């Protein structure tokens, strides 16, 4: 791995950490429930991207399955919570 790629991965992971901190800020501060759901969905996305960056960092394709699971779980949980906010129940 070249020094440029190593530095780029370090910067990318730091920026992802900063983005997740900002997402947590919105999650804690969000005035309404839908803001918190949006922040949680964003956090799932950034965590999944971090998994993919870590796969490049450690040269391992083992990180692919957690990333896929994280994308799926983020979608299902966000959809279920938004449906709950919309209807008051998840499955009608």
């Amino acid at each position, binding site marked *: 791995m070249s020094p440029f790629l190593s530095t780029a991965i370090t910067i990318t992971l730091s920026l992802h950490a*900063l983005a997740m901190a900002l997402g947590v800020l919105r999650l804690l501060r969000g005035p309404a429930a*839908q803001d918190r759901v949006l922040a949680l969905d964003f956090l799932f996305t950034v965590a999944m991207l971090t998994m993919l960056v870590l796969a490049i960092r450690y040269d391992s394709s083992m990180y692919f399955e957690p990333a896929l699971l994280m994308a799926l779980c983020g979608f299902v949980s966000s959809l279920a919570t938004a449906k709950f906010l919309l209807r008051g129940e998840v499955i009608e």
Partner: protein
Amino acid sequence: MSDIAVGLLLLFSAGLVLTAAIGLTRLPDFFQRLHAPALASTLGNWCVALASIVHFSMREEGLSLHVWLIAILLSITAPVTTMVLARAGLFRRRQAGDALPPPLGGSSTPDATDTPAAADER
């Protein structure tokens, strides 16, 4: 050579993700904040997936396209989440009687459910 491409793609996606986070934090209204995470889940995600494909295709012989599955999955699911969340936000704002963003102008046949009067009757 491929390391430079991978690094540039990663840096670009990191910038997009940070932009999305700043938008999520700084934008004043919920319906404006709803737009921000799309940056991370579309173009940021595609750049990371492309970087991963380039990196693993250079390391191992042959294409390794399985990361593309995540990009396609997220591209399909992100609009669904956003639309359901927007409807939930609209519904809750109407229930609470808050000020709603005005309906888009120029429509000759305004939808009755989008006017504030319909929210008052409910």
